[in-house]
């Protein structure tokens, strides 16, 4: 498939000169991208790069079966272009984002409205018009942006006939803080810290993607032991969050035993990350060129012991959940997303794997330590809340096993090597006019970072795609025809990031 493509191929966590990207006029570029998507590629990122003569559109696509990525760009232009969304819904949010950021209008886009831009008053996102269902029996329920629990802000607009949801529209942007625009001209001193807080619960995932991008731009790679440490931290992050999610799912159906136990075990996993680097969320561990903290043999042994206990505890807590018929009755057939829909929407991470799609960056596009050691991909059919919970449970088991194995066989060597500085007027360790792409399978799914440097090696454009950006539409679809009272359960089964989407 990828051998026939006219796109420029590149592997995960590598770079490509900007000039090597094929360039087509906008209409031709959209047609070429559509053809690749038809051939089984998947859209990882779609963004604009403004220039003097107009804005380039850039597409990063992934050929999962061929373990390769591909990139292409349009000639700079302004104004209108034929929409890709009309034929490929997975581009839907991307095209809205490009329209909002660069004013390029996708003709034929079915639902063109802002993604996260603030309104005229500058106080809240310009949500635009919501889709409305008319009829005497229809009522509209608006939830948020202020919620009853301690969660992030987002607005959900339901069109209901009685208890049945006919349509759900999700409006986000309340957490928009300019993470991407702040990166232009960078990296700055604060960039790494900002990247770590793109989605605070995915600190390791985003920091690893960022570090990989910088290493790819420098044409180097972190030392092996650093890659090992990053893999450990990434899997610990997955364990902590998946455990928390299972507990939250149990809590939503008022099943106390698992809910109470998982809340505690999540803390145990977070504390293991703290044992590794001193911070429960892994801040300050990953940095371009390697890692900031090493795991000495003594602490590795401690970690191994505590990990065994925590994994066994999780096994017990999850056992209660699966054994309870009342829980199963709530999870099964609730919020189903079907595999064709998931493919069309370009879902990633556990929600995609819960539809039976084998889609995991660690397996499809391995980089870093995952080229040397892999956990089996966790897949479950069905696409409902039960399947999403099951995928999380499978990943918990496999990541736990992976960690136990990896902790027993650490590689030797340094944990940090400064990025080399090539000989140029200003000593920057980044190739000029180069595009670098890094995908990382965070616990929510595929994190995509793309950096394009200018002639001085500074960031001309930095694009972050959090897995939530792909998956929010999946949640809206899962609610079709469901009871509105099941929304919190469906929402929890996706557990998407608001700030990762809003940037």
């Amino acid at each position, binding site marked *: 498939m990828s051998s026939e493509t006219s796109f420029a191929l590149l592997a995960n966590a590598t770079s490509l000169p900007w000039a090597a990207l094929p360039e087509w006029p906008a209409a031709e570029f959209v047609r070429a991208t559509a053809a690749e998507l038809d051939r089984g590629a998947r859209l990882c990122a779609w963004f604009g790069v403004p220039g003097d003569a107009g804005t380039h559109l850039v597409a990063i696509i992934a050929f999962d079966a061929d373990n390769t990525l591909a990139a292409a760009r349009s000639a700079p232009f302004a104004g209108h272009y034929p929409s890709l969304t009309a034929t490929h819904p997975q581009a839907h949010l991307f095209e809205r984002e490009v329209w909002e950021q660069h004013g390029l209008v996708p003709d034929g886009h079915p639902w063109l409205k802002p993604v996260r831009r603030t309104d005229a008053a500058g106080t809240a996102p310009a949500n635009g018009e919501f889709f409305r269902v008319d009829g005497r029996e229809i*009522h*509209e*329920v*608006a*939830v948020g942006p202020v919620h*009853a*629990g301690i969660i992030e802000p987002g607005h959900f607009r339901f069109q209901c006939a009685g*208890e049945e949801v006919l349509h759900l529209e999700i409006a986000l942007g309340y957490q928009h803080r300019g993470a991407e625009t702040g990166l232009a001209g960078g990296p700055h001193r604060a960039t790494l810290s900002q990247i770590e807080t793109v989605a605070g619960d995915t600190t390791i995932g985003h920091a690893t993607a960022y570090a990989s991008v910088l290493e790819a731009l420098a044409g180097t790679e972190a030392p092996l032991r650093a890659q090992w440490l990053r893999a450990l931290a990434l899997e610990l992050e997955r364990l902590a969050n998946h455990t928390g999610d299972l507990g939250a799912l*149990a809590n*939503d*159906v*008022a*099943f*106390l*035993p698992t*809910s*109470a*136990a998982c809340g*505690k075990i999540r803390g145990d996993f977070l504390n293991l990350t703290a044992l590794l680097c001193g911070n429960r969320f892994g801040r300050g561990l990953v940095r371009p060129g390697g890692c900031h903290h090493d795991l000495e043999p003594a602490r590795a042994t401690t970690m191994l012991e505590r990990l065994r206990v925590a994994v066994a505890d999780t096994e017990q807590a999850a056992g209660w959940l699966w054994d*309870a018929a*009342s*829980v199963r*009755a*709530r999870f099964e057939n*609730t919020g189903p997303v079907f595999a064709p829909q998931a493919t069309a929407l370009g879902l990633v991470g556990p929600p995609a794997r819960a539809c039976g799609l084998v889609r995991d960056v660690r397996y499809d596009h391995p980089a870093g330590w995952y080229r040397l050691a892999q956990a089996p991909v966790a897949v479950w059919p069905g696409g409902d809340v039960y399947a999403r919970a099951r995928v999380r449970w499978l990943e918990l088991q496999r990541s736990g096993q992976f960690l136990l194995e990896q902790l027993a066989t650490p590689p030797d060597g340094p944990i940090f090597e400064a990025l080399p500085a090539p000989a140029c007027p200003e000593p920057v360790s980044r190739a000029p006019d180069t595009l670098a792409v890094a995908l990382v399978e965070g616990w929510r799914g595929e994190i995509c970072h793309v950096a394009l440097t200018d002639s001085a090696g500074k960031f001309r454009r930095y694009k972050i795609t959090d897995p939530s950006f792909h998956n929010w539409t999946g949640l809206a679809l899962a609610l079709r025809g469901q*009871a*509105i*009272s*099941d*929304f*919190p*359960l469906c929402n929890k089964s996706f557990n998407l990031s608001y700030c990762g989407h809003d940037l």
Partner: protein
Amino acid sequence: MIVFLEFVARLVGWLVLAPLLPGIINKVKAWVGGRRGPPVLQLYYDLARLWQKGVVLSTLVSPGFIAGPAVAWVAVLGAALLLPLGPVGAGLSFRGDVLLLIYLLALARFCTAWAAMETGSAFEGMGAAREVSYAVLAEAAIITAVLALCVHSGSVSLATMLNPAAGAGAVLLAAGLFAVLLAENCRVPFDDPNTHLELTMIHEVMILDHSGPPLAAILHGASIKLLLFATLLVEAVVPLGGLSRPAAAGVLAAGVLVVTVGVGLVESLLARLAFRRVPLLLTTAFLLCLFALLVAWKGGAA
């Protein structure tokens, strides 16, 4: 004078003891979950705190927003006074008082739903709709249970009705009434009193916009209702008539405690039902009470 004092003592007893039950349920839940949990007296603290707070009113509401909880609270308390306590009898007793009890509870529900609709909020309208639609089914069950007791005792006065015989009928009645208790008091598996998720709530969502003393009245009323149903359940199943006063009081208290702990255990070990399944369980409760009625009817004739 003695009668008056006894009436006051009864009133105070209901008012003071009722908030204990939610505390016990929460303690049981905490214990099963391996947590320490809030103090047993937490609801008392909450009521004291709420009583001192101001009231936030929407610009849309009519006086019904305040009147609703007040009327509901008085109605539930009135229903409680109608309930005889073993050999002590009821605060007020007459022929057909059981119907008044049922309708006072219905009035309380109507007032809560009315106050909820006052706000014009989509959530609260939704909650009110859910509350009354499930109440239709729960009421069918409780009326059948009352009928069973009527047929068994040949009376329509609570004082003589709540004097049951042991046997198959009592077991059926206990099961049916326990399900009604859980539904009427918004406990798991029908509702989740702990949830913060508006979209899944039934009862809780109706009182989201209440604050201060009206909210205190609602919470206190709910605890009285729980105590009322627990007492009714125990008396409908355990024959207290033949016992001496202290023994009857002891058995009643023990029975109520068992029911309360039972509610706590159900909440700890069961997930809540999907909404579409709630009618199934309530219909089951109705059928249990119906069979108890048949047993009382045919069993009595044999």
